[in-house]
């Protein structure tokens, strides 16, 4: 079966700057595909090319196997949920949802029925006569999706639709969007700069930076097995060092930082002795302990002083400074054993070499 959406060697240049640089990917039917990246990385450009509001400089976009490059936006079998939703303020909710159906010259009665069905589907029956500005943020969101879904598009594009919502509602809508996608059984292509949105909802995530895809994979791949330093730094938090490789035996490495700290790590790229490398260790991969015995057989063990406790509920951290003066961020377990931890306390920390990813650094 042909993938619902396929981009081949997509390039978009604006004058001298290359916004999208040779990007290829394909999205299998019925999946939730996210493009995640910082603002300005080119993800919106890709989305607008798929929707037809921008022409690619080169490359091809195929939907269900057919190129759509010469199809104008109003004829493409893709629909888009805009960043600020772009609901038509001059129309009622029912008119908004029925807009695309009216364009297809569907009979009035059938449109009314379809609109009612869609409203039921999004859990907002009976609001058809209301005006757009009478709805809450979450309701508008659902209406914007329904407005596209009544047209049964092959692909639904979503351009950071949760950006304008407040935190609580955003958490809620993440779950709901995923459920809606399952209910409509349609391919969603979602762009966002918020990694949590991408990780929670997506089947596949493409991490994008400076016009290129750094890595495509599911959430676990990106989190546990980042391919590039950018992904390692962008997904989740990490303690980060630059140093020189002292020893290399296959994948097992030892790196010495500029302050003299020696760290055992695992190579992601091909690295040899003497190479400059970048090292990432997640705060949650570091174990905190009262004595060195609790650190078991971790390859890396350090002793240090607590310089600060960053309390943030489940995401609480401590900053630990070792003898050499390096400061590390370490997750503070909320299981109770460290509830009396204070600034100035001496602690032991340790992590396994497998949790320390090493990449080739800039020379």
């Amino acid at each position, binding site marked *: 079966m042909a993938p619902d959406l396929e981009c081949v060697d997509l390039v978009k240049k604006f004058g001298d700057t290359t916004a999208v640089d040779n990007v290829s990917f394909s999205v299998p039917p019925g999946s939730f595909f996210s493009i995640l990246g910082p603002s300005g990385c080119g993800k919106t450009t890709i989305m607008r090319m798929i929707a037809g509001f921008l022409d690619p400089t080169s490359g091809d976009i195929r939907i269900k196997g057919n190129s759509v490059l010469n199809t104008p936006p109003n004829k493409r079998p893709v*629909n888009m949920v*805009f*960043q600020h939703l*772009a609901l038509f303020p*001059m*129309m009622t909710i029912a008119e908004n949802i029925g*807009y695309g159906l009216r*364009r*297809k010259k569907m009979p009035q009665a059938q449109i009314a029925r379809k609109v009612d069905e869609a409203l039921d589907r999004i859990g907002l029956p009976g609001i058809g006569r209301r005006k757009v500005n009478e709805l809450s943020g979450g309701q508008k969101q659902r209406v914007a999706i329904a407005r596209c879904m009544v047209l049964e598009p092959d692909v639904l594009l979503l351009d950071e639709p949760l950006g304008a919502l407040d935190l609580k509602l955003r958490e809620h809508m993440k779950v709901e969007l995923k459920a809606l996608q399952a209910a409509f059984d349609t391919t969603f292509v979602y762009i966002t700069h918020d990694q949590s949105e991408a990780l929670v909802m997506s089947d596949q995530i493409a991490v994008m930076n400076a016009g290129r895809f750094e890595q495509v994979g599911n959430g676990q791949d990106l989190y546990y097995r980042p391919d590039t330093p950018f992904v390692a730094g962008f997904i989740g938090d990490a303690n980060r060092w630059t140093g020189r490789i002292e020893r290399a035996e296959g994948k097992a490495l030892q790196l010495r930082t500029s302050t003299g700290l020696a760290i055992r790590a695992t190579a992601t790229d091909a690295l040899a002795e003497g190479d400059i490398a970048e090292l990432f260790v997640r705060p949650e991969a570091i174990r905190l302990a009262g004595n060195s015995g609790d650190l078991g057989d971790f390859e890396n063990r350090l002793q240090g002083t607590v310089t600060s406790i960053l309390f943030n509920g489940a995401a609480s951290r401590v900053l630990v400074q070792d003898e050499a003066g390096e400061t590390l961020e370490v997750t503070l377990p909320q299981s109770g054993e460290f509830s009396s931890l204070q600034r100035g306390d001496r602690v032991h920390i340790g992590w396994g070499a497998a949790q320390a990813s090493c990449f080739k650094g800039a020379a």
Partner: protein
Amino acid sequence: MRAQARIGFILLLMPLILWLGLLIIIPHIDMFLISIRERISFGVYETSLTHYQKALTEPLYLRTFWRTAVMSVLATVITLLIAFPVAYYIAKMARGRLQQVLFLLCLIPFYVSELVRTFGWMILLRETGIISHLLQWAGLADQPVEMLYNDAAMMVGLVYTSMLFMVVPLVTTLESLDDSVVEAGYDLGGTGLSVLREIIIPHAMPGIVSGCIVVFMLSLGNYLTPTMLGGKDSLWFTEMIYNQFIVRSNWELGAAFGFMLLVLSSVIVWGMLRLTGRTLQETLG
């Protein structure tokens, strides 16, 4: 209200009341009173509707009245049709510097007296004017062509004079239309025409209404353009008011005409507001 605030309130209210009372409300009431009095003999007056009777029965007066109304509506419609694509271009198609420059260009005629604008059209259109010369030079006419002193010339002048007051409100409302709303219209299968009809025009309605009201008022109350560009038999209602007041010194009939013009403009403005469900405050304020 505390005493100090009360004094401040009264001090601020005074100029408003004086201005509206002495220059707007009382003068108009006085004008109405003059219009319903009939001079019996020197210094002796009687209340009567005879001037209105005269205005409504005399064919010349009545014809001029309706002609002025219809031509003003026509001028408004033409102005809207010409201005809309231009306003749309400025608001949505032009970008950055070009947008600013085009907008400023639209304002230029406003900074030039109406008299100068009318004078310009006279130089262009009259028998010895530029266009007549151009036509002869191009061989399209073998003798001087008089294009002045007819309804078409007057319409050109009226539309020209009011253009700015249509373009500016249209640009302002169209600018507030989010690009993504238009894109959404296309994305959901709309064509240029349906997006225009269902999204752009409804959004621009406030601008259309306020533009139309102002242009209509300006056309209706125009004196210069019909006098200078219009033909001998295309009398404008304001010319009749002027004639009664200044030439004939028949203030009673002139005041009656003035009051009729006021009623006509109020009715049309009110009708337009009713039709679109808007208030005067929203439209002008």
